[in-house]
């Protein structure tokens, strides 16, 4: 599991991903850790199959007992099916996750960790040197869905938004936005169900000052690529299957 530090200040952001030992039939994921003066916060900790690689990767940058908070942007298995294992490893921790999914997420095993349901409008979490914001991203793609914004590091952890399906070993950052678009297109068209939710989210996120947009799959966006992504996403029609697209094609040609 590779670890890259994406922000270093009074607190730190790390991304874990590109696990060379990952089973080939499971999707590659990015996990994030915010470390702030002896308090660590693990974001979208990953699937059960990722845990054995994540544990030593996380331990390489903080003491595991330091993990006080976990976050699940939504209920998908690639996001949080490791919950039952983290429940054993950090029984003292709290899990921040959409209120909507509490009864569902607990199927992964949550006997010790305290579940803190994030209300639909979002909330904040105080770390020693930064107040993090849980930003609503409902229906993108999950019906109860949040992202995490750090106004000091200017990082937006954007869950499945900005995700790309890539071969193993892809670089950590987008370096050519135009070349990256085809890797994201199918994912966003198919997994994102609602244009209305999409536009709502774009309006909300455009008000934030973002240096790095950090999705849960594929490469991260930085600098102007964040704005490029928002413009591209705004123009993209989502909630479209291949069948829809095929049915629309002759009409468009006519």
């Amino acid at each position, binding site marked *: 599991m590779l670890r890259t530090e994406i922000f270093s200040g009074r607190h730190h952001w790390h991304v874990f991903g590109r696990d060379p030992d990952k089973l080939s039939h499971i999707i590659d994921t990015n996990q994030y850790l915010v470390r702030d003066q002896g308090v660590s916060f693990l974001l979208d900790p990953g699937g*059960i199959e990722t*845990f*054995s*690689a*994540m*544990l*030593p990767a996380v*331990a*390489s940058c903080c*003491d*595991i*007992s330091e993990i006080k908070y976990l976050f699940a942007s939504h209920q998908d298995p690639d996001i949080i099916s490791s919950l*039952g*294992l983290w429940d*054993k*490893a950090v029984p003292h921790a709290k899990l921040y996750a959409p209120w909507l999914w509490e009864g569902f997420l607990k199927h992964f*095993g949550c006997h010790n960790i305290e579940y803190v349901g994030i209300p639909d409008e979002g909330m904040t979490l105080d770390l020693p040197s930064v107040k993090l914001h849980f930003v609503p991203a409902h229906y993108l793609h999950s019906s109860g869905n949040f992202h995490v914004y750090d106004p000091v590091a200017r990082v937006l952890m954007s869950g499945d938004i900005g995700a790309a399906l890539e071969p193993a070993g892809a670089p950590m950052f987008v370096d050519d936005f135009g070349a990256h678009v085809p890797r994201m297109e199918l994912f966003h068209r198919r997994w994102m169900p609602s244009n209305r939710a999409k536009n709502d989210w774009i309006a909300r996120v455009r008000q934030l000052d973002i240096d790095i947009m950090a999705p849960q799959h594929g490469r991260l966006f930085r600098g102007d690529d964040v704005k490029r992504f928002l413009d591209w996403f705004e123009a993209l029609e989502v909630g479209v299957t291949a069948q829809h697209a095929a049915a629309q094609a002759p009409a468009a040609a006519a």
Partner: protein
Amino acid sequence: MTYSSQREQQDFFARTATVVGHLEGVRQIANGISLAAANAKAVAARAGNQAAGFVPITNFIDEMGGETRHLVGRVNRDAQRMVREVLAEKRLGDSLERMRRGIERLDARSPYLDEIARQLTAEHAAARESTTRHLTNLCELLQTISDHARAARMMSTRSRVEATIAGDYQESLESVADTVDHAAQHIRDVVMKCQSLLREIN
């Protein structure tokens, strides 16, 4: 009990499910025994003095039918609880395995994680012990059912002797004795099958 492979695990679930299925059949047979006993009581009442010796026998068989039904209910509940326990044990074993694999890959030893692994190991061992204990209890309960069925067969033999002095009612009382005998034999066969299924797990 060892559950080293997934196949063994699946095998266990298949066996337990088969046992639960068989026991459902035993419950129905036990219902049949109670019915036969009720029938015998009615015949004995009509026969009056001719079948006086028959009454305590039918009472005994009736009680035994009820007791068997009760035991089968208990065994079923226990078997279902055991399936849940085995699932929990499997989940713990899986967590422990994944935790150990992660710990093996640490750059430096973590006393914190060593302690977590130690606790998990103890929890897993306790779960395993409890499953084994429940399996033993289950086997004992099955043995009790089998003993009841054996006693019923002995009673049906006595019934036949009593039937010979029941005059006009001999035939119907013999038929009741046959019903009980067959049912009891059937229960013993099924219980033996269940016992051998469980023995192979143990």
